């Protein structure tokens, strides 16, 4: 983490220059040894091009022996920066404390996909591990030449290479290359983003030799934030910067037809920027920009109300023509199996639109100066925003630098990318650096949404109570009305308000499980968005995209089948789950929670206050999670308290159990919030969830009393994603616990007191 001084504008500027210089300065103090190394073809005095096929694009050894890591993904507060440093230090046999990481700056890193799909360790870490292993191999080769000892008779201890049988024959990494650059070509697969992969000739270590990986090393970015010394994107300032605010229409889809600039003439420096449906204001002082945005008189075009009544949302989804259908790999013949069923169990589930509703609305700063564009943004994908800014501004990509800076939380494709493009359009229009911060109502009402959906499940049961066939269908809005990054103008509000139509992509998902039913069909279908341009209900990825929706349904339904067959929910799952690691997480959670085998619902409770327990499990990629929820239900109020969770989590090799435990715990609480409270409200004109009263989330008084996390470590299995997986089974675990407590099945999220009370009555 770069540490900024907390004060004025000029220090910010000089520090940014220092930040840029930092990369260069590793070449500064030239040692005797590095002069000797100058003829070595593996070493370059100046940095090779910042391309994925260069080792220097990922790792540098500085003159002081510290190691700089340049990473093209981002740490959204889940401890990824530490995990990557551990993986690199491990492969290099360098002290962890000597590593530094530079994240998400397009000037120092290649496009590894940004924060995306829980791939920080799985893909990003894998690449960094391979690069570090190659760096170690190259350094050993250099040391072998230097020391006259074959590389296979060399050992590395804390960044010093020495003869295995003679510790006096030694040379440090700093002496070998410190202050210069690797000149080593990697075998790049030609891809950017998550699939980028560029190994060298080296193989990484055997996990049994790991000493740094697996340690619970604490995060280092917390103290600066707790002492108010770290900058968030909203805190960045540059000289000459002005403040921008955007103005959104009262009826979604409307465009300004008349803007009365005289209505803000009393506000010093306030200016209007209006082009087609793009409308914003700027002013030198932030408060003036806020006032101008509130005060500006705008006449909007008359458009037909774009949305159905919210009460008709799920009927709309049922009836809307499907735009695309995709099926999972079919097993057996489902239709024939249903014909021979002794009994059929069916259910349908509903999930609303949900908002990222980040702690602070989107914010970005764009400076256009001397033909160069610099953007500070909280986006998850700085490199894609670089492409998007170039397209939006009509400039070359290499003239744009995007510097990722921590934002107010990040759980996917939020309004951060929109803010970056809006700031760029305003900055170009007024010829000054512009900082845009959205308002609260824009942050909640106008961010990209997690899609609403319905899910139908049916099971064919034979005369002996076996599941013959399983059929599962999700139908909903696509999860990618706008793409998961802002690389194309069509995917941002700026592009869409400037006239580029939304081109909604099609994507949803399938349940992740290993139920070995003899006949099985899973499928999804998408429908068109409600509004084809600049819609406050446009969808995109939000933490575990469509995972909570699908598994709320699929794992509630498995529970319904278990209950119909009078089976214990854990025992029933174990009867059909085939994957040994799936079985292990289910068993681990059950054991930790002291699960008592019996069918749901309980029948031993009377009165208004009842309790229950429920389990759900899911795979997410190669990760598996089982969650047991224990809930209290107040029948008189409909209030649910998700009192205790027990989570068993297997993501292969654990890089840092500390960060993992926090991520799991936070995901469970956030998923509980989404399950109990969250629903984007709208009327026919617009989204009406505009703040924390109209988009309530879980309060601390409702936080669980206890979350037990069982981490299952498989050092021999490549690490898979952990940023989102534990979000996935939470809603079903709670629903199943409510059923256990009350005998009532709730099939629509959220389980707010009003909804639960109505379901119970």
């Amino acid at each position, binding site marked *: 983490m770069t540490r900024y001084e907390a004060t004025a504008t000029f220090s910010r500027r000089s520090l940014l220059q220092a930040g840029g210089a930092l990369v260069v300065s590793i070449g500064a103090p030239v040692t005797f040894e590095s002069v000797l190394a100058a003829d070595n073809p593996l070493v370059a005095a100046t940095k090779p091009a910042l391309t994925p096929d260069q080792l220097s694009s990922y790792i540098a050894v500085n003159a002081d022996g510290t190691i700089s890591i340049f990473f093209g993904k981002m740490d959204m507060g889940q401890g990824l920066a530490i995990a990557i440093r551990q993986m690199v230090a491990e492969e290099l046999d360098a002290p962890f404390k000597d590593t530094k990481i530079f994240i998400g700056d397009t000037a120092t890193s290649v496009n590894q996909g940004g924060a995306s799909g829980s791939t920080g360790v799985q893909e990003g870490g894998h690449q960094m591990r391979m690069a570090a292993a190659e760096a170690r191999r190259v350094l050993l080769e250099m040391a072998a030449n230097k020391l006259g000892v074959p590389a296979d008779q060399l050992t590395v201890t804390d960044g010093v290479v020495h003869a295995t049988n003679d510790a006096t024959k030694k040379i440090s990494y700093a002496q070998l290359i410190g202050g210069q650059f690797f000149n080593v070509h990697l075998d790049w697969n030609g891809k950017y983003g998550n699939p980028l992969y560029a190994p060298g000739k080296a193989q990484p270590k055997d996990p049994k030799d790991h000493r740094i990986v697996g340690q619970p090393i604490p995060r280092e970015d917390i103290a600066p*934030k707790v002492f108010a010394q770290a900058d968030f994107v909203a805190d960045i300032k540059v000289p000459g910067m002005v403040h921008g605010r955007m103005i959104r229409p009262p009826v979604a889809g409307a465009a300004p037809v008349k803007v009365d600039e005289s209505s803000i003439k009393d506000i010093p420096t306030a200016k209007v920027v209006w082009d087609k449906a793009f409308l914003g204001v700027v002013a030198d002082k932030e408060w003036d920009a806020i006032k101008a945005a509130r005060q500006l008189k705008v006449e909007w075009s008359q458009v037909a109300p774009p949305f159905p009544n919210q009460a008709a949302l799920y009927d709309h989804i049922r009836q809307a023509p499907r735009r695309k259908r995709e099926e999972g790999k079919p097993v057996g013949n489902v239709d024939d199996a249903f014909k021979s069923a002794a009994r059929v169990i069916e259910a349908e589930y509903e999930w609303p639109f949900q908002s990222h509703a980040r702690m602070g609305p989107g914010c970005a700063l764009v400076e256009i100066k001397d033909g160069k564009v610099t953007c500070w943004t909280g986006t998850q994908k700085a490199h894609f925003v670089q492409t998007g800014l170039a397209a939006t501004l009509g400039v070359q990509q290499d003239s744009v630098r995007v510097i990722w800076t*921590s*934002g*107010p939380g990040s759980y996917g494709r939020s309004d951060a990318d929109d803010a970056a493009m809006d700031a760029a359009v305003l900055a170009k229009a007024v010829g000054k650096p512009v900082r845009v911060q959205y308002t609260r109502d824009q942050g909640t009402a106008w961010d990209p949404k997690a899609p609403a959906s319905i899910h139908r499940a049916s099971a064919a049961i034979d005369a002996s109570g076996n599941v013959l066939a399983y059929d599962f269908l999700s139908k909903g809005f696509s999860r990618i009305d706008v793409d998961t990054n802002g690389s194309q103008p069509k995917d941002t509000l700026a592009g869409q308000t400037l006239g580029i139509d939304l081109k909604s992509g099609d994507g949803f998902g399938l349940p992740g499980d290993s139920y070995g039913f003899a006949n099985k069909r899973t499928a999804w279908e998408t429908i068109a968005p409600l509004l084809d341009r600049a819609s406050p209900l446009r969808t995109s990825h939000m933490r575990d995209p469509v995972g909570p929706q699908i598994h709320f349904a699929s794992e509630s339904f498995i529970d319904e089948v278990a209950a119909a067959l009078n089976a214990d929910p854990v025992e029933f799952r174990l009867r059909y789950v085939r994957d040994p690691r799936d079985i292990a997480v289910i068993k681990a959670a059950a054991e930790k929670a002291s699960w008592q085998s019996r069918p749901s619902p309980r029948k031993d409770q009377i009165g208004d206050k009842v309790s229950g327990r429920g389990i759900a499990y899911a795979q997410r990629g190669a990760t598996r999670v089982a969650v047991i929820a224990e809930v209290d239900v107040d029948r008189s109020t409909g209030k649910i308290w998700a009192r205790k969770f027990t989570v068993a989590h297997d993501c292969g090799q654990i890089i840092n159990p500390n960060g993992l435990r926090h991520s799991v715990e936070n995901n469970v*609480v956030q998923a509980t919030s989404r399950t109990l409270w969250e629903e984007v409200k709208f009327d026919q004109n617009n989204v009406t969830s505009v703040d*924390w009263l109209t988009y309530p989330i879980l309060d601390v008084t409702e936080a669980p009393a206890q979350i037990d996390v069982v981490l299952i470590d498989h050092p021999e299995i490549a690490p898979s994603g952990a940023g989102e997986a534990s979000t996935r089974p939470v809603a079903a675990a709670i629903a199943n616990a409510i059923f256990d407590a009350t005998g009532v099945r709730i099939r629509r999220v959220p389980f707010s007191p009003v909804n639960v009370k109505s379901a119970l009555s």
Partner: protein
Amino acid sequence: MTQKFSLNVNGKVQTVEADEDMPLLYALRNDLGLNNPHFGCGLAQCGACTVHVDGKPTRSCVTPLKEVGDRTIVTLAGLGTPDRPHPLQTAYVQEEVPQCAYCINGWIMTAAAFLRDHKKPTDAEIRDALTGLKCRCGTHMAILRAVKRAAAMMG
């Protein structure tokens, strides 16, 4: 109409020239260079902008300058430093509470005032004292652990 206001912030009196209706938050952030607190909602619904005004947790996003007068303002930066941390800051670091950390002004400043006035609080008392504050990342369990840890440190 702008006018001059003398603000006593973190032990220093400084002058700000601004609209009398401008919320304190913008004076702190833009005129006095104190990047914490943060803008979260502008509606006093989340707590990200919380500072102490005469020791009382106050949402600076809805506190107009004209109402501040000569009262003493303390921000997160003034609560403690790495050399002389407030117990809550120590506990926050030890428990590694935040995910994004944007919300911490609200939790720490509110909890600091609560723990100052309530020794050895129960879990329920802590929760009630913090009700209404928002954390979107879901770090509530760690927040509660840190406040309990700080309460123990403060005796």
